[in-house]
């Protein structure tokens, strides 16, 4: 980050005043707590995981979207049945790019959309009967091994008991059926849905299959969704290192893998926000420790692999890890050298997700680009400031209704993988278990950290800093590009990728070169227009 000169970034407080000026006073007051000109040398605090102000154009979606999208959405061998009017099922149908490899004979329901398509009489007289019938019909036609039921807004309001229906039909059909009370109005963003998904998969699936797989180093990968094939690259890396992957929550995943995941000896947490609940519960119930890793960026990937090596404390494993890193790095360096002259010193902004806005900063840094504004769509305070804030976090009215599972040691199966002594030793060796410092400490002074950024704030940031690239999601894509600023979607990767680990880093470097330096940005102004150039040279001083 040292390549940003101080004078490049104007005083953050002043920029913030400008941003807030347009808001009604109450809104300005509320938003001011979610916008922080960063200065990691002092105590900082950001407001997050709070309600979006109505009428503000937000990036956020709903609890249902978070619940269905995460954990089971990317899981191929379960029927995900949406109980509600048709829209919720339709709009969450195949739109997240979670890739999967079922093999020629394996179950794969991911290309399907299942819905009860509730009608007004179901709203008036209740939808439980239709839900039961739908489950029966799904069973008769498909004979799946499991069915998940996802509640939409009206379901909770009219009082349909999806869990009772699930129990009854599970009993009747003899397959695993369970529900998610993930009505869209719950919580303040997708995040509530993640939590609900974590809880239900833990309650209804995890631990059902005790058979330990062969392999010396058994791991789970948590919070990796295999967008554009990221997980495939990570899987390949694990295999070459000699690590045995039991399950991925959730990318290229199956219900069977989840049932068996408690046999692993280490959990790797990729997306801290969406999946830390499962990591914690697996530790409490089964004694599996977790570490935060990051497979976005070649440097971060190498660091993460080495941490895994240290955790298992096995010479052969560490040797293989080093060998794999050595095999991967030449291509990375070659691509880096190739694009660096076109990307060095340019500015990026990243506003997505729960962890991506942090992870991608390292990847940008590898090609000499600085992230001068970043924030999450649905993260909590610990994702910004680190897990040190957890003990003091206050639970507000919107989070209180999201169930917090009470998990205890499994009387038979709890087995601490590392003794306290071993954990202390690991800590001394620089292996950080159950720790995450969040995004803010990694960002430069006067860069902006903004939670739940609005359309207005997006516009202001772009106008003030003219970044070389702005990263967000599909809803933001064209408002940014219409301003002549290249935009990269970091949810869907603009249908490209994969961007994970080493090969992904190479893809990303070249993709950034293309995104930022495409000829189109120089074609906007017609030759007969004499107004000054407003595009194409952003941030390239």
């Amino acid at each position, binding site marked *: 980050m040292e390549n940003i000169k101080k004078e490049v970034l104007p005083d953050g407080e002043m920029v913030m005043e400008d941003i807030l000026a347009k*808001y*009604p006073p109450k809104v300005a007051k509320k938003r001011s707590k979610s916008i922080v000109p960063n200065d990691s040398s002092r105590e900082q605090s950001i407001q997050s995981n709070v309600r*979006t102000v*109505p*009428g503000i*154009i*937000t990036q*956020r*979606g*709903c609890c*249902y979207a978070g619940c269905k999208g995460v954990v089971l959405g990317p899981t191929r061998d379960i029927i995900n*049945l949406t109980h509600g*009017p*048709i*829209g*919720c*099922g*339709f709009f969450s*149908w*195949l*739109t997240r790019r979670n890739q999967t490899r*079922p093999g020629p004979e394996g179950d*794969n329901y991911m*290309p*399907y*959309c*299942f819905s*009860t*398509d*509730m*009608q*007004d009489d179901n*709203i008036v007289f209740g939808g439980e009967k239709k839900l*039961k*019938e*739908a489950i*029966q*019909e*799904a069973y*008769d036609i498909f004979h799946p091994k499991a069915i998940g039921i996802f509640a939409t*807004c*009206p379901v*909770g*309001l009219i009082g349909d008991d999806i869990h009772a229906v699930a129990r009854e039909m599970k009993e009747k059909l003899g397959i695993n059926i369970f529900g998610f009370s993930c009505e*869209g*109005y719950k*919580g*303040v*963003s997708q995040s509530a849905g993640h939590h609900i998904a974590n809880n239900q998969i833990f309650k209804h699936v995890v631990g059902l299959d005790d058979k330990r797989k062969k392999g010396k180093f058994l791991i789970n990968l948590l919070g990796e969704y295999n967008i554009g094939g990221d997980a495939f690259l990570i899987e390949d890396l694990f295999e070459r290192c000699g690590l045995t992957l039991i399950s991925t929550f959730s990318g290229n995943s199956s219900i069977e893998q989840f049932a068996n995941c408690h046999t692993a000896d280490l959990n790797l947490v990729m997306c801290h926000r969406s999946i830390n609940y499962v990591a914690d519960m697996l530790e409490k119930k089964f004694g599996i420790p977790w570490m935060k890793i990051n497979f976005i960026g070649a440097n971060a990937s190498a660091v993460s692999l080495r941490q895994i090596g240290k955790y298992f404390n096995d010479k052969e494993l560490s040797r293989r890890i080093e060998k794999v890193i050595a095999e991967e790095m030449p291509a990375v360096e070659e691509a880096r050298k190739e694009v660096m002259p076109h990307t060095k010193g340019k500015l990026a902004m990243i506003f997505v997700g729960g962890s991506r806005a942090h992870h991608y900063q390292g990847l940008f840094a590898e090609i000499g680009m600085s992230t001068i504004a970043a924030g999450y769509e649905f993260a909590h305070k610990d994702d910004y400031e680190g897990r040190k804030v957890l003990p003091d976090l206050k639970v507000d*009215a*919107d989070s209180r209704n999201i169930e917090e599972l009470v998990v205890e040691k499994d009387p038979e199966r709890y087995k601490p993988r590392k003794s306290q002594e071993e954990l202390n030793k690991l800590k001394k060796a620089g292996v950080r278990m159950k720790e995450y410092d969040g995004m803010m400490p990694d960002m430069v002074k006067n860069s902006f950290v903004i939670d739940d950024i609005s*359309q207005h704030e997006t516009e202001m940031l772009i106008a003030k800093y003219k970044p070389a690239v702005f990263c967000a999601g*599909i*809803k933001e894509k064209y*408002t940014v*590009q*219409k*301003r*002549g600023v290249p935009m990269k979607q970091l949810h869907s990767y603009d249908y490209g990728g994969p961007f994970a680990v080493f090969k992904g880093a190479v893809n990303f470097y070249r993709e950034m070169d293309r995104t930022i330096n495409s000829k189109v940005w120089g074609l906007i*102004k017609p030759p007969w227009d004499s107004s000054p150039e407003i595009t194409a040279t952003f941030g390239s001083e």
Partner: protein
Amino acid sequence: MLLRHTPEEIKERKALTVNPAKMCQPIGAMYAALGIHGCMPHSHGSQGCCAYHRSTLTRHYKEPIMAATSSFTEGSSVFGGQANLVQAINNMFTIYNPDIIAVHTTCLSETIGDDVNQICQKARDDGKVPEGKHVIHCNTPSYVGSHITGYSNMLKGIIKYFSKSTGIKKDQMNIISGWVEPSDMKEIKKIAKEMGIKIVLFPDTSDILDAPQTGVHAFYPKGGTTIPELISTGDSKFSLALGEFATDAPAKDLNSKCKVKFKTIDLPIGLSATDRFIVALSNAADVDVPECITEERGRLVDIITDMQQYFYNKRVALFGDPDQLIPLTELLVDLDMKPVYILSGTSGKVFVRRIKEILAESVPNAKVKNGANADLFLLHQWIKNDPVDLIIGNTYGKYIARDEDIPFLRMGFPILDRVGHSYFPTVGYAGAMRVLEKILNLLMDRQDRDSSEESFELVM
């Protein structure tokens, strides 16, 4: 196989929809509202509805879709969404400065019984609506009808709020457009202009959802039906409603409110439907059809003459929205093709009746289904049982097309995997030429791909 669990055997379903061929009302209301100049749609519901609709519209139109939400929480679902909506209205006018906020409801706000009319009135009474600005609304419960119903309901809302009769008729006619691309709306205006007819087209998403790249993001692009134009619809001499499912009800409303006579005809997709459109325009405005339109029609017929041998007897499966499917089926019949399966998730008895009429002579045994459980799973099963030569529908059809190795024409909404559909029309004679060219390319590419080396042709 992507849809590997779809069996040939068809079991009757009553409760389970698999791979729907419809969306819910609010997205239609949002699209219709985007066709009004200076208008910002507002979704009175959970954030997810607005996020899903904006995402889907953005993926299809590849343009900014600016819309806001009441961001319901559990609390507002219990106590009602009034505070959220009033605050939203205030914030939207202050921050985004639209001329109109077009509120539509969702299954959430409908289920709890929010009275949106009253809430909008409260916002006005509380001074949250600046002078000269408007808040309009419509009810779009997601558990009734489909996205087409929602589109229609927003048009009804627009008429209710804006259309006024001064008692003095203007020398103009209304064209109420069904859900088509911005390029189609442009084409409709072009045709009216060529005929020398002054029209008010609404909604009109052209120059909004096909806005040029200028380096400046216009929050409210220059297109869209303006407020004075909308008010004047009550003084128009006549309304031509294009597409019965989307526009018949609004046209009726306008007639009962402002005594504007109307005629509901099909969307002008294909030769025959465009013929009827031109005749209806000509009759309503009492103008002759200009030479340039006759020539354009002639060119279309000429192309059909040239292409007809390749179309003859080809079996086609279509799915989508009724207003598109009816004239499209007719076009295929005009081309001597065989539309054998026609399916829409949108309900309404007229659909089957109209399709059956069109196919009475040429394909009397065609399978036609709409409404409950008319979904792509069923369409796929029909195709598995008796294959087709071509599938026409929105992007979701590509899974069937790939599994069954059938040429696939993207038409309808949403198209999520291609660029261009919003820039080139499919309505009018020019639009029909484009549809024909696309169909022919698909069929010929297939023939080129499949033919043996000795039968591979240079000249076709």
